[in-house]
């Protein structure tokens, strides 16, 4: 068990929604990872679909790069479409 790989678990709560990261499980192979994900994360009707991905396959951004990666967006408020007035008869926005 100590050499079981780590897998990231993504759960789709219901049809039409995207899969969201729920957590991770240890498993020796893909089939076992799906079973462990099912038993750990969907036992209270949390989902209708599961993805499992080997954690080692995920490419993550380096926290040290968060300045150049994310801070430039902070003062670009014009990227939010907040300068338009929405006509009264338009719903659901």
């Amino acid at each position, binding site marked *: *068990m100590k050499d079981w790989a780590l897998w990231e678990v993504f759960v789709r709560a219901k049809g039409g929604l995207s899969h969201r990261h729920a957590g991770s499980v*240890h*498993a020796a192979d893909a089939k076992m990872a799906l079973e462990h994900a*099912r*038993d*750990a994360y969907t036992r209270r009707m949390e989902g209708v679909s599961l993805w499992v991905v080997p954690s080692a396959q995920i490419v993550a951004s380096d926290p040290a790069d968060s300045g150049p990666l994310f801070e430039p967006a902070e003062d670009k408020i014009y990227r939010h479409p907040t300068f338009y007035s929405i006509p009264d008869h338009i719903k659901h926005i």
Partner: protein
Amino acid sequence: MTPPLAQYALRLGDDSLILGQRLSEWCGHAPALEVDLSLANVALDLIGQATYFLGVAGDVEAKGRDADRLAFTRDALDFSNCLLVEQPNGDFAQTIARQFLFSAFQELQLGALASSKDERLAAIADKAVKEVTYHKQLAGGWIVRLGDGTDESKQRVVAGLDWMWRFVDEMFDMDALDRKLLKDGVAVDKAALRPAWDARVDAVLSEATLARPAPRRPVLGGRAGHHSEHLGHLLSEMQFLQRAYPGATW
């Protein structure tokens, strides 16, 4: 005398109850946290089935005993589960061997019971068969991993299957009660399920690179209350609270 239908529901409920209790002994002790959750989930499914089946048994019997009374106040002689489900957990491979052999049977039995003339039993079976299909897949996957794994895992799963094999025939045994209720359209023809069970089990064993265990002299008697010594120990633990504090609730 207990009505045949009540006895039949009792058998179905006892199989699930005793195996559920056995499996729950793993809770907190399984080889990995994830496996602990898997086994506990299966155990809870089985205890849920037992609650329904024993509820029907209590209603039909009409002696004022509900599922809890039936589970917690009967003595070993009054339990009618098959002997396979009361066998000790042993190591993980032995537990998986027992689960695989039973779930492969239970899936077929519940599939057939879903068309029983008794609507209550049919409804329980229809709901439970989906759970059991998953149990069979889970256990079958482990049979393959252990059998086609390391020398040690293979040796352990071979020993586990060998321990359990003599209790296989009893699952398919049809006694007078089964035959009477089969004629009434209520019970399942368990003997007729054997070829399908053999084919499923052989397919998994072959994928696991395992040979089918040599035929053993079958051990019978569970349906008539003749149990191994293991059941008494299991009951003493399961029933302790209701025995020491009758009627206790929380």
